[in-house]
């Protein structure tokens, strides 16, 4: 039987809410930060690409958690709920700043995709040393649109299901699926360009 590599379904932090919401709103938020603050901060950091904005975004998200703590449904994923808050805050902030978080390639102007052809079967990123790869990959990730970067973070790094991603991003599963396909193809192409550029130096 073929035993090829597949993504693990359960890794990282358990996706359960903090203790059931107590009568103490402040205690609820404190517990939420202790358990999920770091994950939320890292999610925000991957989304915005810098520590200061990630810190502000995460703080604002937990203030919203405090204000809306009664709307959290015990038994559902607390982390998904916070990620949804972060996502909405980030979108609001992007609209307010008109995309000045960082330079992005709009989806319309993104490099052409593969038109049904596969990317190269030989993956150039295997030749990178870790540090180099980290830089190249981070740079390439930042060239993706917000939605593309977010879907890769959620599907490939955070390992959420398509349904969970759809809930967090507020879109359909079909949209998640197509965004992920496009984003991965584009990211591999960008990485290949980075690789070729580094080889020609």
């Amino acid at each position, binding site marked *: *039987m*073929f035993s*090829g*590599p*597949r*993504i693990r*379904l359960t890794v990282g932090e358990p996706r359960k809410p903090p203790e059931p919401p107590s009568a103490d709103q*402040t205690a609820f*938020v*404190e517990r939420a*930060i*202790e358990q999920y*603050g*770091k994950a939320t*901060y*890292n999610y925000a*950091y*991957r989304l915005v690409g810098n*520590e200061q904005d*990630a*810190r502000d975004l*995460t*703080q604002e998200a*937990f*203030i919203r958690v*405090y204000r809306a703590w009664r709307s959290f449904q015990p038994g559902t994923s607390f982390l998904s709920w916070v990620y949804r808050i972060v996502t909405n805050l980030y979108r609001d902030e992007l609209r307010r700043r008109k995309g000045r978080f960082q330079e992005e390639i709009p989806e319309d102007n993104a490099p052409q995709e*593969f038109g*049904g052809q*596969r*990317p190269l*079967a*030989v*993956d150039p*990123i*295997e030749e990178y040393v*870790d540090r180099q*790869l*980290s830089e190249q*990959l*981070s740079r390439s990730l930042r060239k993706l649109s917000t939605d593309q970067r977010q879907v*890769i*973070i959620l*599907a*490939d*790094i955070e390992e959420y*299901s*398509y349904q969970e991603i759809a809930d967090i991003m507020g879109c359909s599963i079909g949209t998640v*699926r197509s965004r*992920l*396909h496009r984003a*991965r*193809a584009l990211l*591999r192409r960008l990485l290949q360009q980075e690789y070729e550029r580094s080889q020609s130096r």
Partner: protein
Amino acid sequence: MQHLTSDILIDYLHHELAPADDARVLAHLESCASCARELNVEATFTDRLRAVARAQELDLPLGFQSAIMARIASEKPGVWQSLGRLWRPVVIVPFAAAVAAGAFFLAPVLAPPSSPSAALPVSYYLQEHDVRAQENPLGDRSAVILSSLNTENDGVPVMQAVNASR
């Protein structure tokens, strides 16, 4: 043999294919080295992404939690927020009961009498009723009818008595 597309391989990798499709992909991968190689590339790509993310993982900045709690402490609840907090059964039910009891006991004291006659004794109405009943020619206790009932008129004593009284 038709090879699997990247899209299908990505969905397979993320366990997002329907069971029947998943089984078909698995069967194909067992017999197609090219697609198995391509799946391996996609999986390696994901592993690298995850490894980079792990390597870049940040700890929460110092004072992160206390900054949030300080901001929360400085937030004053708005009027509607304060009122909203009162809208709970444990508060609202006793409050409603107290208002109802107060209304029940205080209404006779606070409300003025609806008309001056409310203070008149009951006997007044009984006497008044008797007087008016006697004055009514068609009433049960009319003096005219009572006197006519003593006459000998077969069948229609009342009407005759009334006519006679006119």
